[in-house]
């Protein structure tokens, strides 16, 4: 038997360390080659690390939430390898380099009780299989089970090699799997729903969630927010959008976002102070000519902000296509680092969930953020009667250290005017 280290691979992009997000194994587990060992996270991408060997997990390099350096030991696996693999670190006599010298000494104490490990394996297997009395099959022998049983086990994440078979010739039956499921599940919850409940679930804040938490805390701690909420009559804008969508043909469907991007581009001409970064540590405000529009996007893992770079260069349909692509990439975890950083202004929209008003938190070091609230038809007084109008609130927050209330208010009024009369957005020169 050989004990080999699985090292944290170089995941590229100059990443030097990774955070352990999930362990898929624990010491004593049997793993196959290519079985997932752990998920680790770099800046915003999660990477799955597979096993290079088939064998038994000896120990883990750290707990969930800990960071490991690239090249560090993720975990160690005892396997029947020949020691030819480059990653293998068996207990050969002390090597030349300091690293090689230190590793065997790490391994050696474990190497001696190898016969014990072999004999200690059955208990591990027994435990996994919930103490069902049946001898597990010899190592390397394929478990015997019908395709349906194999499929059921796979979907439940059960490794059939750890399941004793009670059928003829050691075949694993559906009933054998039932026993594993029964042992897995917590005490039956057949009792009344009014049963008194105990216990607290402790959820580690790690990975993307921790990053979000850190960013939000930083923004809220440093930036004194002033939030302005204004109502906008978007009837004309919505008519325009509907017409354009009807005639779009093969082009992507227009959401509100491309219009907001276009309106912002117009508004920034008079309000360059809004498309800016406040580098508060240096005491510098950077006003940007390019508009890199961050678009807050909900993903299965949490909030991330893909960036529509150089929004000023897009037409409505071009922007719509690019925004859809970015959102898709973000949701599937495929967005590149480039696509997730460098925004100069951020839009946050919860669509139909958008509430009446919100108080958005600024995406530090930006100086403003535009929140879009739910659209609704409301009765509006036109001077003689109530008329139904499509109304939508916008809630924008500003960094009050560098944006005065008056600036914030005029910017919002400008935005409101553009959105209420969308033709203004597209006038080449309204002066």
């Amino acid at each position, binding site marked *: 038997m050989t004990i080999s280290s699985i090292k944290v691979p170089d995941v590229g992009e100059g990443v030097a360390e990774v955070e352990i997000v999930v362990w898929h194994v624990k010491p004593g587990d049997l793993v196959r080659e290519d079985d997932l060992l752990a998920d680790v996270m770099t800046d915003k991408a999660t990477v799955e690390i597979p096993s290079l060997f088939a064998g038994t997990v000896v120990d883990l390099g750290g707990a969930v939430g800990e960071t490991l350096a690239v090249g560090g030991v993720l975990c160690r696996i005892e396997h029947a390898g020949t020691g030819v693999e480059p990653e293998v670190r068996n207990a050969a006599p002390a090597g030349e380099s300091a690293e090689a010298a230190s590793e065997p000494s790490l391994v050696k104490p474990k190497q001696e009780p190898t016969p014990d490990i072999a004999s200690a394996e059955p208990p591990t297997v027994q435990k996994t299989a919930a103490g069902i009395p049946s001898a597990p099959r010899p190592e390397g022998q394929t478990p015997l089970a019908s395709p349906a049983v194999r499929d059921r086990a796979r979907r439940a994440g059960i490794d059939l090699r750890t399941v004793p078979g009670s059928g*003829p010739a050691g075949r694993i039956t559906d009933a054998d799997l039932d026993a594993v499921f029964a042992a897995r599940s917590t005490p039956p919850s057949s009792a009344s729903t009014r049963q008194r409940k105990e216990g607290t679930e402790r959820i580690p804040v790690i990975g993307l969630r921790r990053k979000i938490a850190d960013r939000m805390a930083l923004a809220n701690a440093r930036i004194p927010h002033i939030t302005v909420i204004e109502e906008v009559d978007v009837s004309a804008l919505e008519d325009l959008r509907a017409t354009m969508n009807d005639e779009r043909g093969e082009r992507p469907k227009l959401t509100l976002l491309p219009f907001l991007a276009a309106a912002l581009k117009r508004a920034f001409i008079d309000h360059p102070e809004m498309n800016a970064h406040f580098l508060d540590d240096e005491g510098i405000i950077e006003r940007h000519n390019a508009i890199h529009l961050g678009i807050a996007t909900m993903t299965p893992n949490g909030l991330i902000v893909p960036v529509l770079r150089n929004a000023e260069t897009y037409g409505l349909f071009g922007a719509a296509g690019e925004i859809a692509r970015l959102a898709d990439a973000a949701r599937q975890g495929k967005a590149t680092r480039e696509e997730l950083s460098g925004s100069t202004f951020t839009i946050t929209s919860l669509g139909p969930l958008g509430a009446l008003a919100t108080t958005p938190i600024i995406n530090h070091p930006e100086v403003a953020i535009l929140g879009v609230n739910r659209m609704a038809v409301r009765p509006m007084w036109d001077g003689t009667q109530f008329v139904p109008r499509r109304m939508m609130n916008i809630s924008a927050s500003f960094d009050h250290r560098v944006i005065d209330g008056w600036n914030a208010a005029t910017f919002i009024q400008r935005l409101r005017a553009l959105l209420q009369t969308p033709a203004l957005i597209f006038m080449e020169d309204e002066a």
Partner: protein
Amino acid sequence: MTARACKVLIIGGGPGGYVAAIRAGQLGLDTVLVEEGAVGGTCLNVGCIPSKALIHTAEVFSDACALAVDNPFGITSAAPQIDLARAVAWKDGIVSRLTGGVATLLRKARVNVLRGRAQIMDGKTVGVTATDGTVETLRCENLVIATGARAQTIPTLPFGGDILSSTEVLALETVPKRLCVVGGGYIGLEVGTAMAKLGAQVTIVEAAPQLLPLYDGDLIKPVARRLAALNVQVLTEARAQNYANGQLEVMVGETRELIAADKVLVTVGRVPHIHGFGLETLGLDRNGRYLAVDQHCRTSMRGVYAVGDVTGEPMLAHRAMAQGDLVARVIAGEPVVWDKRAMPAVCFTDPEIVVVGQLPTQAGNAGVAVFPFAGNGRAMTRDRDDGFVRIVFIRESGLVLGIQAVGAGVSEMAGEFALALEMGATLTDIAATIQAHPTQSEAVQEAALKGLGMALHI
């Protein structure tokens, strides 16, 4: 030029590629299938299906011929004639029905089929040159190589003229008077037998000491007997050299022989189709001359998969189909893995041979139980009681490791054999399953009973 994007791009519309495409489409993946010729690949167009049509034609003809002479059924009949061109047209009708059916299934699964030739630029980009010469570039998230295999050539016997590959022999419109088959594997034997039944004088030249070198002698004996009855000459340990002036030069051991032949069929194996479309640029790992894949049909490059004959032996359509289905599910994120226990293989010789699982020669000191069709009523009533069913099993547990059979019509028993292995059946399971009487399947139950020491009819 902007590249069209898709989730799955499959190169090759054979059984591996088209099944992957249909399944991927059903699973809602945006799928493009690139195929140069007709969908269906070797199997539907120039392989399994056309050869079975030819074999069936030959059997019908041979049965009719048997009725023209003294026969046990008391039937008198004139000597039959055959117009092979009509049979070929009938075969072509079946092929176009099947390929048309596949095209319909692809359409129903919303697969985008591109007629053209693929050129891989990188692991995510493929150029497709359509039949009209226009070039389109596609970007894909997942690339599936399903380019199949083609007939292996012998340098001294290049295809063309009277030297045929399996493709050309299946399109012959007249029966050659004298046919020499180089290569005694299953393709050579199937076509050679059919041609002999159609009236050709057939000689089979095999380099190994026996026909079907992968199988044991017991399975081959009934086939060899039938070949002899059909007047087929079999030369083993013989190497074909040159073909000139209607004569094939063959070295049998040290002796040089000249065999008169109007056509020479070369069936010495198939080579994976991995050159000429940019695959080399990916630098994928190889397994011998095939593409190396893991249990998810993944190649060594992320997002690049391979299925079917390019991944090696056994080169069987049903293996490719199972891989195609698997690969689509893998891409869709399902937790599936290649864990098949049984891979049935059938030789449509006369009699037919079915092999599933381990042969006695491969299974060490396993138990072997054989039941001959001579003890089976149904086989006798079909006037074909040659052959047997054989079960290979672990002595201690009775676990079935392999089932083989040789006999007329046994190809339809392949499913039963495969099911038994896939389900992990023991001798007891098979012995305790009632078989309908009178059927040839009773021989399977009897073989299991014999393995348990409790045979009834022997």
